[in-house]
């Protein structure tokens, strides 16, 4: 039975239509969660005094190595294009600009090629240079409750293992790549439904239906990524503001003497010197 032929209890086939309405509600909730996370972090950081220690006491995390320029540049281009994709994509779904669809699509397509190229380049760079930094190890998994506890203001510091913690590794190494792949697939599906989604037609009940489902997935993935990026931005801002500035090339990274893993076992390092 094709997806689109599923009937509700009254025998009406309005599932696809209803799901689009639900998609809007879920998207709104996801944005709300993203905003809520900001509120939670700001309140928590003030309440626990972390904010003061970080922004006034200047107790920021130490960095083992200078971040090379290439990932920074790639990230910068990527972020710019992603923002363009969100704006144009949302304006395509909720049009407000007079006769905006055609130019918006044009911008969406330029930005989307930029994102795909950067994504492939970053993957290549990761495999050549820094994939280790994103690998999730057993230690990471064991460490994860403490990391989570730290972000929820339940615990103090957590042992520093590598450049990124588990949450970061999951976000950078799994969520972002997976969702970008989904976005690219469904996005191309919307551009060339027959070619890209043809093989799904029997399941969905025709190419048109497959495109309609692809649209729902594309939209929800975009909003899910938006939620995660809001969290990502919030943490990079609050946890390591100097690194954020440096990461966007606004300040120069100070050379910091290598410390840590060569001089003491990682489990004993106080990752966050300002641990509350």
């Amino acid at each position, binding site marked *: 039975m094709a997806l689109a032929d599923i009937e509700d209890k009254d025998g009406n086939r309005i599932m*696809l239509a209803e799901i*689009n309405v639900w998609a809007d509600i879920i998207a709104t909730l996801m944005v709300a969660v993203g905003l809520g996370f900001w509120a939670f972090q700001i309140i928590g950081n003030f309440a626990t005094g972390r904010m003061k220690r970080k922004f006034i006491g200047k107790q920021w995390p130490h960095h083992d190595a200078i971040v090379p320029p290439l990932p920074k540049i790639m990230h910068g281009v990527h972020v710019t294009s992603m923002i363009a994709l969100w704006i144009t994509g949302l304006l395509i779904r909720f049009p407000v600009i007079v006769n905006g*669809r055609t130019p918006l699509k044009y911008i969406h397509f330029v930005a989307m090629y930029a994102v795909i190229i950067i994504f492939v380049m970053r993957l290549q760079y990761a495999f050549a240079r820094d994939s280790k930094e994103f690998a999730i190890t057993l230690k990471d998994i064991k460490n994860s409750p403490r990391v989570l506890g730290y972000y929820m203001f339940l615990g103090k510091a957590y042992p520093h293992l590598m450049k990124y913690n588990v949450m970061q590794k999951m976000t950078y190494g799994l969520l972002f790549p997976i969702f970008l792949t989904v976005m690219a697939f469904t996005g191309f599906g919307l551009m060339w439904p027959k070619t890209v989604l043809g093989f799904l037609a029997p399941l969905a009940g025709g*190419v*048109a239906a497959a495109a309609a489902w692809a649209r729902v997935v594309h939209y929800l993935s975009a909003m899910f990524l938006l939620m995660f990026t809001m969290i990502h931005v919030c943490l990079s801002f609050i946890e390591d503001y100097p690194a954020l500035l440096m990461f966007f090339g606004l300040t120069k990274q100070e050379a910091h003497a290598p410390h840590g893993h060569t001089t003491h076992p990682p489990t004993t390092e106080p990752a966050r010197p300002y641990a509350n």
Partner: protein
Amino acid sequence: MAIQLIPRQLNRPAPMRTSARLSGLVALATGFFFCLVPAIAQAAPVDFTIGIPGKTGCLVCHGDPKLTEVKSKKVLYISESVMLGSVHKDVPCTKCHTDFDSAMATQSHQGKNTDSKKIAGLSCKNCHEHAAQLKVYDKSTHGRLAMGGDDKAPTCADCHGSHEIKSLKKNKAYRAEFRMNAKQVCGKCHQKYYASYNDYYHGRAYKTGAADAPACWDCHGAHEILPADQTESKVAKGNLAKTCGTCHPDSRAGFANFGALIHGRDTMLGKNLLIKYKDKLLTWFGDTFLGSKEAAASGKPAAAKP
């Protein structure tokens, strides 16, 4: 004797200049129409010819921008340049205003009550060029009602206009303009459905001018419009897949269930469980966690439209 100059002048192929020369007289005729012209016309009938292009006679009076009905202030001026630019430039006035004959041009038709909307508006049926449209229109809801004399149903002219009609097939700019004009063409009578035509890719996009978004008639048809519960209707359940298929490749019955959203987005949002119960939820939340009903009432959440 001046009046006898009129016929010869009127038969000239460029009636525009004729009326210019006659402007003095026409102004006079307009000003004193109700007392003067009838008297002159009846006393000395002039041999107007309503020849090809056929406007000459009628435009002696109707070509004057100031020709206005005194009581109702209705402007009776017919712009000649607009008529000449229309697809019907070779159609004599009386072919549409069938209740006016050539003789009328020579006389006043003061007090003649004509319902231009009904008579001229349906006159299109008299010409074999329009037989094709008439055939489907006759069977449509609109046609049946209008032919039966229902004032609320659209005659051909309600959708197409009257003197300014241009070719939809050949004139691309006019067709594009017409396509974007559904608010006028259908919306003036179907306000509710125009307003509810509000889904993502079709209605909203259409209203912000997206040329690839469907106009009402891409789904409903132009002349063959029927209610959705009639099997021949283009938006009947059984035909919807084919109708949507004009734009969506391989559209099948299951896909057509999106049709419910085309006019139904707002209603569906309203019926959605979460939104329906959001007030109850909030009250419950307020009672349970904040311990007050006021807190819940003031904390109205944003509606689910990002």
